[in-house]
């Protein structure tokens, strides 16, 4: 299974990137893919780079604490790309279909289905991480939104002695 | 248009050859190549022109410059007195220097001081041709080592490579130093190398080289010109029957100017 996926790595990653970019507005998606120089578009490039890593991570069954920072990089970008939260993580599920298509030719292999399901479990695990990550970023945006609103009228609020403590706390681990 | 296309193809082929490392082998095998070329010429009944110099006969006519003058006038060779920049196709040199490895301290004074006619040796294995980066100098099928002044870039590698000092470089415009320009033979531009061509332009018209003709006219008969591939030729017979010398034989250049002392 892993060997088969490894063999088709380039093809699968490419298809996965394409599916991921599809969540952009139509002409942007077309554009991101048509620009075949990977470095012409930073957003597309980041996605391509990190998806490649994530796919390898799935193959090697890398522990979550290594995966999350890289996953975050994609989600941090997709979270603000005017797509919804569901779409922001849908790219993980897209991998399932991509893989099924890629392995369609080997359907005769009896053990394939079982191993395929095993691999999809890993994808599901990744999806959970992605949901987690996405909700963190959406939460961060929501917090930022509130804090920005507060900042805008900061001196008024101070003058009115508004209690500052109910402002959302700085995010944990942010170190600010 | 035809020749334009040909030129283009040549250029293209040249460019293509740049990409091939195959040429690397060929400078090792250059000698073998030259040998086989000469062989082919022989097999195909081609000519192999050579010159024989009878130094004794030549020396008998003290101060004779008939051959030199004839050559230099015919070929518009400039007369530049400054030894550093002089241009000469054929000239005389003392035997002591011409035959450094044949003349020794017990050789008689006459022999050592004897003026010997020297010129391009038209070697069978010419180092000048080997080193030239543009094939401006090349070996023609019937023997003479030729110069194509149109192609010469003036790098003087051939001057450095020639063991006989037979090549001259035009350090300046030669035209002012030619007394009487013969339009039949183009002078050279500054910046190119020139040398004796064995009068190939005369040979093509069935004439003897200018020097040989002049020598005969003077009645000296010191110079003998002919085809070494022709077993019946006078020069072949002379070389076969008497001990002759070629300059710096040990360098393996196989000169085609034969000397008898």
């Amino acid at each position, binding site marked *: 299974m892993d060997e088969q996926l490894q063999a088709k790595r380039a093809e699968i990653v490419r298809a996965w990137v394409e599916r991921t970019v599809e969540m952009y507005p139509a002409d942007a998606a077309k554009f991101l893919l048509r620009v075949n120089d990977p470095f012409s578009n930073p957003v597309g490039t980041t996605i391509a780079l990190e998806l490649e890593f994530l796919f390898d991570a799935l193959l090697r069954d890398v522990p979550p604490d290594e995966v999350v920072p890289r996953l975050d990089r994609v989600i941090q970008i997709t979270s603000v790309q005017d797509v919804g939260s569901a779409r922001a993580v849908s790219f993980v599920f897209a991998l399932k279909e991509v893989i099924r298509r890629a392995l369609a030719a080997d359907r005769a292999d009896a053990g394939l289905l079982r191993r395929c399901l095993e691999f999809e479990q890993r994808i599901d695990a990744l999806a959970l991480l992605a949901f987690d990550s996405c909700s963190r970023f959406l939460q961060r945006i929501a917090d930022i939104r509130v804090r920005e609103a507060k900042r805008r009228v900061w001196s008024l609020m101070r003058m009115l002695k508004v209690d500052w403590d109910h402002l959302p706390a700085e995010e944990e681990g942010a170190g600010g | 248009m035809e*020749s334009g296309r040909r*030129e283009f193809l040549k250029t293209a082929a040249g460019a293509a050859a740049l990409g091939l490392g195959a040429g690397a082998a060929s400078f090792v095998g250059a000698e073998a190549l030259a040998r086989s070329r000469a062989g082919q010429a022989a097999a195909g009944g081609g000519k192999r022109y050579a010159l024989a110099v009878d130094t004794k006969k030549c020396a008998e006519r003290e101060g004779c410059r008939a051959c030199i003058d004839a050559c230099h006038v015919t070929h518009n060779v400039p007369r530049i007195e400054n030894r550093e920049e002089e241009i000469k196709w054929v000239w005389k040199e003392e035997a002591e220097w011409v035959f450094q490895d044949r003349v020794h301290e017990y050789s008689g004074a006459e022999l050592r001081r004897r003026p010997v006619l020297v010129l391009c040796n038209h070697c069978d294995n010419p180092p000048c041709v080997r080193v030239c980066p543009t094939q401006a100098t090349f070996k023609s099928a019937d023997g003479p080592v*030729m110069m194509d002044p*149109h192609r010469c870039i003036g790098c003087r590698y051939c001057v450095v490579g020639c063991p006989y000092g037979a090549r001259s470089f035009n350090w300046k415009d030669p035209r002012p130093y030619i007394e009487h*320009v013969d*339009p039949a033979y*183009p002078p050279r531009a500054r910046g190119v190398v020139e040398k004796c061509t064995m009068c190939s332009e005369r040979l*093509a018209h069935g004439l003897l080289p200018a020097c040989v003709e002049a020598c005969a006219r003077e009645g000296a008969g010191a110079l003998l010109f002919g085809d070494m591939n022709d077993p019946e030729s006078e020069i072949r017979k002379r070389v076969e029957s008497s001990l002759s010398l070629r300059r710096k034989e040990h360098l393996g250049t196989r000169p085609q100017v034969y000397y008898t002392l």
Partner: protein
Amino acid sequence: MYDGGKVVFGLALFVALCTSPLWLSVARGGGGAEAPPLQMPAPAAGKCVRDGEWMRNSHMELLNSWRDEVVREGKRSEQLADGRVIEKSLTKTCLGCHTDKTQFCDRCHDYVGVKPFCFDCHVETAGG
């Protein structure tokens, strides 16, 4: 703000440059419209080695190929279509008929601004 003066100046400069050949030729009295007459060889000299039109366009190519063939391959002569055998020589064959280089070669070369380097070496006139 318009900067009209600067624009007009620039524009005038541009128009003057674009049309300068016109003014130059007017200033020179309009000469040079026709190619200078070339001194052609006497009829007795016979026909040229190629037809005239071809020679006008491509003589440099002919000379170039002659050059290589003579010097590098030793092929000194050539049989023409009409059976004549000629020597491939600029000095002997070409200048043999076109005896005056200045009245033939140079005139046209100067007219079209071409500077061949043949005559850096090759001698122009017999006995020159």
